[in-house]
C-alpha cells in the first residue's frame, strides 16, 4: 500500500514538472504568434505593453501581415518575393539530393567494388566537415572557375546539394541495405538491369526513408541562413526568406513592429511540414541516430 502511494506521488510530481517544461517551451512561440497580430501602437511607443495584455484589451489586426507580404517599394519587407525564392530553392535541392543520394546509396549497399566500405566511411565522415570550411573556396570556384553569375539560384542549388549528400547517402544506405537480397536477385534473374532494379524496386521500397530524408532536407534548406548569405547575393530575385528576415530584424527602426509577423510567415511552412509529417521525421532521426 505504502509503495503504491509513493509511486503515485512521484508520478504526480513528474507530470507537474513535465507540464511546466511544456509550457516554458511553448510560451515563446505563442508570444510571437499573438504579437504578430497586435497593432503597431500596442507593440512600440508610449501605449505599448506586453502581448499577454492582448487577452484583456482585445485588439487584433492582420495589417502587419499585409504590410510584410505585399511589395511596396524597397523599404517594404516584400516577403512574398522571398517566400517564392525559398520554395524555388528548396524544391529542386530536395529532388537533387534524393535522386543522387539514393543512386549512391544503392551502389554502396549492393554494388561490388574494391574499397567500398572504406569509401562509405569516408562519406560518413564528410558529414561533419563544418560548412564554414567549404564556403570560401566554393565561392571562388563558382565565380572564377565556373563563371556562374553572382547571385543566382544555380549557386544555391549546387551548394545545398553538395552539403546535403553525405547525410542523405548515409540515411538511405541504412535503409536500402536492409532490403532483402532475394528481391533484387529475383529481378536480376528475370533479366532486369541495374537501372530497372533501381527505379522499379529500390526506390518504391525505400519510400519511408525517402520521405524522412525529404523532410530533413526541406527543413534544413528552408531554415538555412549561412549558405544563403554567402551565395545568394542578397537580392529579391534570389535570396530566401530567412535572409530577408535576418536583414529586417537586424536593423532597429520604425518598422520593428512588423518583425513578429515576418517571422511567422517564415516559420509557417516548416511548422506545417513538421506537424503534418512528424512521424516520418522521427523515423528519420531514429535511423540516422540510433544506428549510426
Amino acid at each position: 500500500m505504502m509503495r503504491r502511494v509513493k509511486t503515485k506521488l512521484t508520478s504526480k510530481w513528474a507530470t507537474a514538472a513535465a507540464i511546466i517544461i511544456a509550457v516554458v517551451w511553448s510560451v515563446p512561440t505563442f508570444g510571437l504568434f499573438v504579437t504578430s497580430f497586435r497593432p503597431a501602437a500596442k507593440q512600440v511607443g508610449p501605449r505599448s505593453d506586453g502581448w499577454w495584455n492582448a487577452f484583456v484589451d482585445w485588439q487584433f489586426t492582420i495589417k502587419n501581415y499585409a504590410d510584410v507580404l505585399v511589395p511596396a517599394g524597397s523599404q517594404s519587407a516584400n516577403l512574398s518575393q522571398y517566400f517564392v525564392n525559398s520554395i524555388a530553392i528548396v524544391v529542386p535541392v530536395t529532388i537533387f539530393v534524393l535522386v543522387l543520394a539514393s543512386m549512391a546509396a544503392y551502389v554502396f549497399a549492393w554494388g561490388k567494388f574494391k574499397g567500398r566500405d572504406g569509401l562509405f566511411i569516408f562519406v560518413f565522415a564528410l558529414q561533419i566537415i563544418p560548412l564554414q570550411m567549404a564556403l570560401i573556396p566554393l565561392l571562388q570556384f563558382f565565380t572564377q572557375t565556373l563563371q556562374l553569375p553572382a547571385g543566382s539560384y544555380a549557386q544555391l542549388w549546387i551548394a545545398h546539394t553538395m552539403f546535403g549528400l553525405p547525410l542523405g547517402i548515409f540515411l538511405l544506405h541504412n535503409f536500402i541495405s536492409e532490403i532483402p537480397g532475394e528481391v533484387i536477385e529475383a529481378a536480376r534473374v528475370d533479366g532486369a538491369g541495374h537501372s530497372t532494379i533501381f527505379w522499379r524496386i529500390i526506390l518504391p521500397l525505400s519510400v519511408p526513408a525517402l520521405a524522412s530524408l525529404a523532410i530533413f532536407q526541406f527543413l534544413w534548406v528552408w531554415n538555412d541562413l549561412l549558405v544563403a548569405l554567402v551565395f545568394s547575393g542578397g537580392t529579391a530575385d534570389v535570396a530566401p526568406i530567412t535572409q530577408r528576415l535576418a536583414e529586417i530584424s537586424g536593423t532597429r527602426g520604425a518598422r520593428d513592429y512588423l518583425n513578429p509577423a515576418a517571422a511567422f510567415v517564415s516559420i509557417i511552412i516548416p511548422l506545417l511540414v513538421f506537424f503534418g509529417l512528424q512521424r516520418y521525421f522521427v523515423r528519420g532521426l531514429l535511423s540516422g541516430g540510433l544506428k549510426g
Partner: protein
Amino acid sequence: MEFIGEKLLQVVIALAIFAAVIGLIMLLVDRAPKSIKDKVTVAGFLAPAAILMVVGLVYPAIRTSTLAFTDAGGNANGFDNFVWMFTQPEALTTLRNTVIWTVLVPLLSTSFGLAYAVFIDKARGEKVLKSLVFMPMAISFVGAGIIWKLVYDYRGPNIEQTGVINFFLVSLGMEPKQFLLDAPGNTMFLIIVMVWIQTGFAMVILSAAIKGVPVELTEAARLDGANAWQQFRNVTIPGIRGALVVVLTTITIATLKVFDIVRTMTAGNYDTSVVANEMYTQAFRAGEPGRGAALALILFLMVLPIVVYNARVLRKQREIH
C-alpha cells in the same frame, strides 16, 4: 505577381537539365557491354554524388587548410593567423565562448530532454506533450532569434515591460535587465535559445530508447525494492547508453557550428561571438579570408575527435554485419 512565372521557369529548366543528365546515365548503364556492365554501373551511379562531394567538400576543406596560412593578400604568413587567434583579446573571447557553448548546450539539452522523456513516458497526452517540446526543431535559428528577442525584450524601469522575463522581474519588484547586452551573462541567454531548440531532438531519441528498455528489467528492479530513482539510475541509464552518446555527440557538433543565433541576436557584439560567427565576419566582412580559414580549421579540429569516434563505431557495426 509576374515574378512568380519567371522564377518558376528557372526551376523547371533546372529540373529538366537534371532529368536529362540522370536519363543519360541510365542509358549508358543499360547500353554498356556485358563485360564491363557492373563497373559502368558503379561509376555511373556514384559519379554525380562523388563529383559534387569532392568539389563541394573535399577540395574546399583542403584549400581552406592552406588558406589558413596566408594573410589578407594571399601571401604565406606561417602561423600568424593562429598567433592572432590565441593572443588577441577579442579572438580569445570568441574561443572561450565556443568552449562554454559546447559544454553547456549538449549537457543542458540532454538533461532536459531526458527528464522530460522520463516524465511523460506513458503519460496521458504523451504525443501532444512531445510535439510541444519538439516543435522548435522545425523553426529556423533566425526565427528562433526573433522569438527570443521578444522574450528578452527590455524597456526602461518606469514603463510597461514588453518582454515576458522582464515583466516577471518587475512584478517581483526587481530592476528590468538588458539580457543581450551585459557580458558575460548574455552568452548564457543565447545558449538558452540553442537549448530550447535542441532539447526536442534529445527528447525524441531518448524517449524511443527508453521504450526499448525491456519492461522485465525495471519490473525486476522494482520487486527487488529499488525506488524510482534507483530504477532510473541503475536500469534505464545503462539501457540507453548508446542513444545518450549519439545525442551528446550530435548536439555537440551542431553547437560547434552554431552561427545563425549569434548572428541574428547580437551579431557577435558585446563579447558574444563564437568561432563560426567570427569566421564569417573575418572572411566575408573584414576582408581577412586567411583568418576566417584559420578559424574554420580550428572548428574542424574540434569536431575531428567526434568524427573519428563515430567512424570507429560505424566500422565495428559493419564488421558485425
